[in-house]
């Protein structure tokens, strides 16, 4: 049986929802409910590539990225569970001069914000990743504090810590409507009953648009299918996440020993479908073998797909929706929701409980789209 009332209802049991719910409870909000239509981490979070980084191309994403890494660095201790952190750095590889120029510009921006990323030589890149074939590359950047956290362990750690603080988590509970009283949130209708509340936080990822429609708000968030694969585990031979925008790949060895990798789809299919393709398997294998030829005997054990929850400028939509009092959004992360979860979960809780945030996020309000104030993030695979 669901509770009948709540101070805050959080919709979505991915990293955003679990981090928002945990931070609300941590800040003293005693009556928080989290609703998940399937199980914890069953959507985009649980399907993601486990990367965390501060090497971004917009000031906002740099600020969010480094603040999130700072939380990740102490998160196992804070939540009382292992989160699979490994800070082997992100090694960015440019294959075009124009791309290298952009990476250098990004490093300058990052450095100005206290992120200690740097431009490095091919020789230094080989020292960081001895198995790397640098052929064709024109430049590299590196940031040691970037790396890996386990999205499953992290999300369950947040959910369990939230539960210990009194958050009620209901799985297999789908929101089917939201009732308003004038311009104010009145309650949430679910397939398992009704909850009266004044505050709703939309953390529904690729389904955030549908949740917005329940209150008459048009959120420009759409799902995009991305594929990924993982290999059998081997001893540690490579530390950094290898990433290239023109090469269109990311590849990282996990603490567990397996390699996880993917690339962006050519046809950006706007679909909730999460099927896998043979084409991805072959193309990904070609990219991998070219980059790390010594590892060509490594076997693929599993491939899958998940949804990026895209926004028009590849930056998240955060904050309150002004025409509906009590309706908050934390979605549209465009493929980097997991790594931003620890900081955005904290910022959203601050906003809901105090009206202010420790990092200004007004520019991420969804109204930016009608004002045409888009700053496109250039650093996305």
């Amino acid at each position, binding site marked *: 049986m669901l509770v009948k009332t709540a101070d805050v209802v959080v919709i979505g049991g991915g990293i955003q929802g679990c981090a928002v719910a945990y931070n609300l409870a941590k800040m003293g909000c005693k009556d928080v409910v989290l609703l998940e239509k399937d*199980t*914890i*981490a*069953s959507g985009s979070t*649980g399907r993601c590539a486990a990367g965390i980084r501060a090497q971004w191309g917009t000031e906002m994403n740099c600020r969010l990225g480094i603040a999130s890494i700072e939380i990740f660095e102490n998160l196992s201790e804070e939540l009382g569970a292992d989160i699979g952190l490994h800070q082997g750095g992100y090694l960015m590889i440019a294959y075009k001069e124009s791309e290298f120029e952009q990476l250098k510009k990004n490093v300058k921006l990052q450095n100005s914000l206290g992120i200690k990323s740097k431009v490095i030589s091919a020789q230094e890149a080989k020292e960081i990743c001895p198995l790397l074939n640098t052929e064709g590359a024109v430049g590299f950047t590196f940031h040691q504090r970037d790396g890996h956290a386990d999205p*499953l*362990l992290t999300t*369950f750690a947040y959910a369990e810590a939230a539960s210990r603080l009194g958050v009620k988590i209901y799985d297999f509970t789908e929101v089917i409507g939201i009732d308003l009283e004038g311009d104010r949130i009145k309650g949430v209708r679910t397939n398992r009953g009704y909850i009266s509340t004044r505050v709703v936080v939309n953390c529904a990822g690729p389904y955030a648009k549908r949740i917005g429609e329940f209150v008459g708000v048009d959120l420009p968030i759409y799902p995009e299918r991305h594929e990924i694969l*993982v*290999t*059998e*585990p081997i001893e540690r031979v490579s530390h950094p996440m290898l990433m290239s925008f023109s090469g269109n790949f990311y590849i990282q060895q996990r603490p*567990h020993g397996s390699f996880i990798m993917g690339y962006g789809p050519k046809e950006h299919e706007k679909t909730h479908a999460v099927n*896998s393709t043979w*084409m991805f*398997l*072959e193309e990904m*294998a*070609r990219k*991998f*073998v*070219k980059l790390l030829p010594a*590892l*060509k*005997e*490594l*076997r*693929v*054990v*599993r*491939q*899958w797909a998940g949804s990026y929850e895209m926004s028009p400028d590849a930056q998240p939509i955060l904050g309150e929706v002004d025409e509906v009092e009590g309706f908050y959004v934390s979605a549209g992360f465009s493929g980097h929701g997991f790594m931003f979860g620890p900081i955005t979960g904290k910022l959203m809780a601050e906003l809901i409980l105090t009206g202010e945030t420790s990092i200004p996020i007004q520019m991420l309000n969804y109204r930016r789209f009608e004002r045409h104030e888009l700053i496109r993030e250039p650093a996305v695979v």
Partner: protein
Amino acid sequence: MADEKDIVICRCEDVTLSKIRELIEKGYTTPDEIKRITRAGMGPCQGRTCRDLIIREIARITGKKIEEIPMTTFRPPIRPIKLGVLAESEDDE
């Protein structure tokens, strides 16, 4: 009878029966959640042995019928394949 701490349910990822039972009793009653937390079924054999054993344990502890328990998704490839072999395959497009 052997101690459940010594009985390995998922041989690829070294997950014991006692760990599985502990999670089910904590309220993780779907194979997907147990997979996500323990990695049971994520190794090279992709759950060929442990999948059914875990479902049976969930059914036994929760009192649910086996057919009421949602299966984990079977994901390709069926058998592990070398990346080098995949990279050399002819592109039909």
